[in-house]
């Protein structure tokens, strides 16, 4: 896969959607992978009787991992996440089909010469928006540019 270069994208560019069928293993694996032992992510009775929700649900750090995967599936390995902010409006449960969509909301080259794309990513289940995420990812400016080589004053996420 050719790396996505900053020059390849502009505002309004849409990423390919990602659809994923969530089951209980998705939720529990995600919780354990993030070392989150809280019962609402593996114990149905706790989730329904204490939290008052319909089932166990995907935890926040694992949602971050899903967003990272969605963004870097698009950029390829040279894409380097600088910043991510997400807002959970509703939980994702076993039986849900998560659909990720994303669009570029802007691009820029910062004063250190690093190329950036800003993205808005949304996770929906059916028509309901579950989580929204604003991400800022560094993209190579050319075939021989590598955002991962930046540090110190040359990396301003």
């Amino acid at each position, binding site marked *: 896969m050719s790396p996505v270069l900053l020059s390849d994208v502009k505002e309004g560019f849409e990423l390919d959607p990602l659809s*994923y069928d969530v089951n209980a293993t*998705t939720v529990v*694996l*995600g919780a*354990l*992978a*993030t*070392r*989150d*032992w809280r019962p609402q992510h593996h114990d149905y009775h706790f989730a329904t009787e*204490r*939290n*008052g929700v319909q089932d166990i649900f995907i935890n*926040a*750090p*694992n*949602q*971050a*991992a*899903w*967003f*990272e*995967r969605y963004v*870097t*599936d698009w950029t390829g*390995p*040279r894409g*380097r*996440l*600088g*910043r*991510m*902010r*997400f*807002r*959970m409006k509703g939980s994702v449960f076993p039986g849900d089909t998560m659909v990720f969509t994303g669009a570029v909301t802007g691009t820029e080259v910062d004063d250190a010469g690093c190329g950036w794309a800003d993205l808005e990513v949304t996770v929906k289940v059916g028509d309901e928006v579950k989580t929204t995420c604003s991400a800022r990812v560094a993209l190579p400016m050319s075939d021989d540019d*590598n955002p*991962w080589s930046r*540090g110190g004053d040359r*990396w301003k*996420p």
Partner: protein
Amino acid sequence: MSPLPADVAELIGKVQYEETGDFPVERGYIWTSAASVENGNPLFWDDAVADEITGGPIAPPTMLSTWFRPHHWAPGRTTQALPLQVHFDMKERFELPEAVMSDNSLTFYEPVRPGDVLSTRQVLRSVSDEKTTKLGTGRFWDIDVEYRNQRGDLVGVESWTGFGYRR
């Protein structure tokens, strides 16, 4: 807005809970995390690619908080250790039995690598007045968590908004 209780106001902006992770960053968790979201990024699976692009293996940036969640049990510990202790402190202080996280923001600096031993510190940034949402009545609070590696390099800053409530 009514003033916060004095003991809570004193905590705003104060560095708390400086600590070092229970264990070094390790590849087993990196692979488990990538597998949990079916992330095929070769930086995590192909050492040749990681050598070329990132100068060796790295952890997914979004795993920052993973390295600080305490073991569920450890010898000699009599109470359950809690991650993001400031969040649980606020729940207890305001006697709010339930809580959820609503907003999470992450900023990534130096890459985290297997073998790194990270340290962290927490800062309470704000606490809201009492509010009622569809979950119940309680308060929102903002907490920053700063992460550094064993050389003192900043590797990330994570900001959380929690909502503690009673149903």
